[in-house]
Structures are given as structure tokens and as C-alpha cells.
């Protein structure tokens, strides 16, 4: 079987697969040649106890189970990275490769990053905000910010010579992983809850194998952790996680660059596990440390839906550690009841003078509609959570009218059409002027 024939063997599986992916004739590294590791990475470090580890496909500290994070030699990075060197780079997230844990030269790149930062004048007028921007990450190749993290994870997976790329996903990650797996000529094995929106299931299945699991995301995550223990697969958000999560920093870098090399006053972020939240902040901090921006004084705001708000609730209640919940929200991409980076997100929100907003479920679709009607951007449910949280922050004067504010839109509404089915109205007419006047214009022709 040739590598190119692999796609025909992929199928949409409606339960756990009876067989594992077939072994490829050639590994990705055989296809690409040896991959040299070029980066400013110094080590992996436990965020809890500070123990250092070498660059390997590991994700938790052997001693305390704390998450591992990539540590860079910023001194080395400062010698080769400047505003000018960034601007000379490709128009993708890989223009920031000096602060990513993988080499641009061998990147598994389908064009993630450098998404539009749109001045939201109409929405701003609606909310009383004069300096509002929308970072539209739905413009990524598979229509969510997950392309950023998976581009890094897939590149590392090739470096580590894995032949199968896999993930546990709430939907967006599934599509991004399957697409990058295809680009990298790898087997893919994507696990998602069986109750996901159809658009997300099909949008991932077109690229490779999708496994629907009867359970919520936390169940899928546990299954994948157990599977990963016994199989040499690159689970992008498990054993590749320290590298994968670094891809989210590129949103912070881009915000700064697109605003004219400065950090905004406020950033509103949809939170599931909390990783995106922490990494956007980390990206801005690194830029400040390298002198690429003067400082990072962004206030970081957590946005979560009422049906799954362990992180925002912890912030509001003054707790440090989010209490796990069983998710019940229409914002399925935010439905992580046991958020691994929740503690760190609460810490950053507190440290920066940010906030936590719990958005009532009915306001999610309202937020989606408001953004669509004012700015022409159709976001998924997570974006509805962000816009409704923004509305509350403006109303409560937590964000002042002239402060530079960025709302992160992380995925497209085309994947979650079900959420707005009852929110939009259409008219059906006969193909006559009379019918148009009567039904659309409300004037009967006599």
C-alpha cells in the first residue's frame, strides 16, 4: 500500500475501531529526510515543581504530574529576532519561529496564522466602545485557531518520527489535526464526543479517520490518555502538549504586531482548558521581555458559558483552583469540565486586573447574531460567549470606552449551524413581484 492510498482506507467510524490504523510503508521522516532540530528551546520545565526535562514527547512531570512547559533561551532569541526579521518572514504564524519549539524550515504548514485583526466600529458603537478590535481566527485553514497549535504539534511529531497523529477533541481540534496529518503524510486517529455538531464531525472526517466516542470531552480525554500509554502515537494535546500549546502564543504575537507593536489594554478570551488564555499572555510577555514591544499591560478576561464555567466561577468566587463540573452547554468547544490550565488562567486574570464572565446560555446565540449583524463575521458558539461577555464588561464599565480592546474569535459559525437555527428568519416567496411585495415588503398588490 502506498502512502497516497492511505486516504481511501479512512472511514468515518461510528464506534471504537475494530482495527488500528495500518502501518505506512514509509515514515514521515523517511519521506522528508532527517529533520534537524533548530530552535531556541532550552528545556521542558514542570510548571509546578520546576524540574527540567529534555525535549522529548512527554507532557507531565514524573515527580508531581505537573504540566511541562517549553522554556526558551531568550538571550539567543534576542540576537536573531527583531521587528524587522519578523516582518521579513512568511505571512503565517511561522514568522515567529524563533519563539516556537520547532523549525520553520520543516514546518507542517497549511497556512495557519496571520489572520485578520478587524476594527469593529459597528459593534463598538453598539456596545459603547470606541477602540474595539476583533481577532478573527476563523480565517485559519480549517476555520479555527487550532491550526496554530496543530501546526507546531505536527512538526514536532515528524521530528520525533511518529507515523500516527491523534487527538482528543471537542471538534475544532479534530479538523485541524486531521488536516495537518494529511499534509504530513501521517496516519490520523481523531477522537471526539459523539454528540458533536455535524459540521465538526464531517469537517474532520474528510481528512482522515474520526472516532465518535459515546461520552463527553472529559471521557474522550481519559480514553486517549489511556490509549496513549500503550501506543506510540503523537497525541497532539497529550504527549505533544508542551509543544502544541506553544502555537497559541502566535495569537499574542500577531495582536501586538497588527496593533503596531503594542499590547492591547484588554483581551477577551474564550476559555475551555485555559491553555489559549495562558499562552496569549505568555506570547505578549515574551515580546515585552525581548523588547519587541515596550510592555505587556493587557488585562486578561475569561469568558465561559453558564453550562460549563469552572474557570470563570473560580475567578468570581475568589477561588484559586476551578472545581470540576459536568458540562452542559451549547458551546461544545468550551465544554471541558476539568480544565487542566484553569488554575493558571485564574492566576493570570487576577494578576493582570482582568475578570471572569459567566455568560447565560441564551445569550450565546445572541452574541453570535450581534457579531454577524454588526461586523459580518459568523462565529461559532464560543465566539458568541466572547461577544456576550464583552457586552457585559462594557455595560459594567470594566472596559472603558476608549481603551484598546481585542475580542478573540476562535472558530467559524458554519460548524455550529444548529446553535442559530432558531435565531434567524428567512422568507419564501413565489417567483413573482406580487408575492415579493406581499410576503417580503408586507404590501398586498391590488
Amino acid at each position, binding site marked *: 500500500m502506498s502512502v497516497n492510498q492511505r486516504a481511501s482506507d479512512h472511514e468515518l467510524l461510528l464506534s471504537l475501531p475494530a482495527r488500528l490504523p495500518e502501518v505506512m510503508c514509509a515514515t514521515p521522516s523517511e519521506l522528508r529526510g532527517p529533520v534537524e532540530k533548530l530552535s531556541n528551546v532550552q528545556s521542558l520545565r514542570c510548571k509546578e515543581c520546576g524540574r527540567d526535562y529534555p525535549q522529548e514527547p512527554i*507532557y*507531565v512531570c514524573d515527580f508531581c504530574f505537573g504540566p511541562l512547559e517549553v522554556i526558551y533561551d531568550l538571550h539567543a532569541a534576542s540576537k536573531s529576532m527583531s521587528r524587522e526579521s519578523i516582518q521579513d518572514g512568511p505571512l503565517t504564524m511561522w514568522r515567529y519561529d524563533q519563539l516556537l519549539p520547532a523549525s520553520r524550515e520543516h514546518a507542517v504548514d497549511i497556512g495557519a496564522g496571520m489572520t485578520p485583526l478587524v476594527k469593529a466600529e459597528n459593534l463598538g458603537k453598539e456596545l459603547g466602545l470606541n477602540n474595539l478590535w476583533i481577532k478573527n481566527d476563523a480565517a485559519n485553514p480549517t476555520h479555527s485557531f487550532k491550526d496554530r497549535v496543530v501546526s507546531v504539534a505536527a512538526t514536532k511529531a515528524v521530528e520525533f518520527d511518529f507515523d500516527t497523529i491523534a487527538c*482528543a477533541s471537542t471538534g475544532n481540534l479534530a479538523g485541524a489535526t486531521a488536516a495537518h496529518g494529511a499534509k504530513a503524510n501521517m496516519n490520523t486517529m481523531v477522537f471526539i464526543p459523539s454528540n458533536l455538531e455535524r459540521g465538526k464531525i464531517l469537517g474532520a472526517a474528510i481528512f482522515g479517520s474520526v472516532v465518535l466516542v459515546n461520552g463527553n470531552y472529559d471521557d474522550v480525554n481519559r480514553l486517549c490518555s*489511556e490509549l496513549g500509554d500503550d501506543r506510540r502515537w503523537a497525541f497532539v494535546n497529550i504527549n505533544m502538549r508542551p509543544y502544541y500549546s506553544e502555537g497559541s502564543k502566535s495569537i499574542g504575537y500577531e495582536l501586538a504586531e497588527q496593533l503596531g507593536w503594542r499590547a492591547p489594554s484588554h483581551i477577551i478570551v474564550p476559555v475551555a482548558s485555559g491553555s489559549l488564555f495562558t*499562552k496569549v499572555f505568555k506570547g505578549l510577555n515574551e515580546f515585552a521581555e525581548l523588547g519587541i514591544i515596550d510592555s505587556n499591560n493587557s488585562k486578561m478576561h475569561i469568558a465561559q458559558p453558564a453550562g460549563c464555567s469552572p474557570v470563570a466561577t473560580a475567578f468570581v468566587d475568589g477561588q484559586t483552583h476551578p472545581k470540576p463540573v459536568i458540562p452542559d452547554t451549547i458551546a461544545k468547544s*468550551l465544554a471541558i469540565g*476539568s480544565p487542566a490550565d484553569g488554575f493558571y488562567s485564574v492566576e493570570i486574570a487576577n494578576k493582570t486586573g482582568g475578570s471572569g464572565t459567566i455568560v447565560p446560555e441564551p445569550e450565546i446565540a445572541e452574541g453570535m447574531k450581534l457579531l454577524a449583524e454588526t461586523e459580518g463575521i459568523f462565529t461559532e458558539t464560543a465566539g458568541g460567549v466572547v461577544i456576550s461577555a464583552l457586552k457585559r464588561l462594557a455595560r459594567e464599565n470594566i472596559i472603558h470606552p476608549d481603551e484598546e480592546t481585542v475580542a478573540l474569535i476562535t472558530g467559524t459559525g458554519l460548524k455550529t449551524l444548529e446553535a442559530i437555527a432558531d435565531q434567524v428568519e428567512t422568507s419564501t416567496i413565489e417567483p413573482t413581484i406580487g408575492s415579493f411585495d406581499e410576503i417580503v415588503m408586507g404590501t398586498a398588490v391590488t
Partner: protein
Amino acid sequence: MSATVKIPTPLRKLTNNETSVDAVGKTIEQIVESLDSAYPGMRERLIDDNGDLRHFVNIYLNGEDIRYIDGLKSPVSDNDELSIVPAVAGGLT
């Protein structure tokens, strides 16, 4: 009561690479003590200085997170299956 405990990769150095081991106890707490007797060092990796389950450790009893049952006091029956899983995440992030 004897239960089977699935051991994740980071802890297999303690269990001589055994992926699954048996432990005895009527509660999760007792199971952890049983594991620590057989595989010294297990307790301090799972339990913090306050006697609570570490924040980045999840233990599942027959597939259910013990935090949703009764934490370390959750009762264990004969032939129950326990799984120790490092907390990781994904989704939107």
C-alpha cells in the same frame, strides 16, 4: 477488597514497567497506601502535602472521576477497576 489499578507511563518507573497492578483497600485512600507499600514513592506522587489528591492527577473508579464520587474516601469494591490519569486538556483550549 482487591482492585486493579491501571498505571500511566509517568508512574511505570515505580512499578517496574507494569501497566496494571493489584492493590487492596476499602477506599481510594487505602488503595493508594497499598500501592505505596508495594511501590514506594507512589503516595507522594499522587497526594499533596495537605493529604489531598494532587491537582494534576485524576483517578477514575470504574470510569468515573473520584472527584464526582467522594474523593479519596470513595468506596472501593472487589474487582473494581481504577485508572490513574494525568490531567491534560484540549478542546478549544
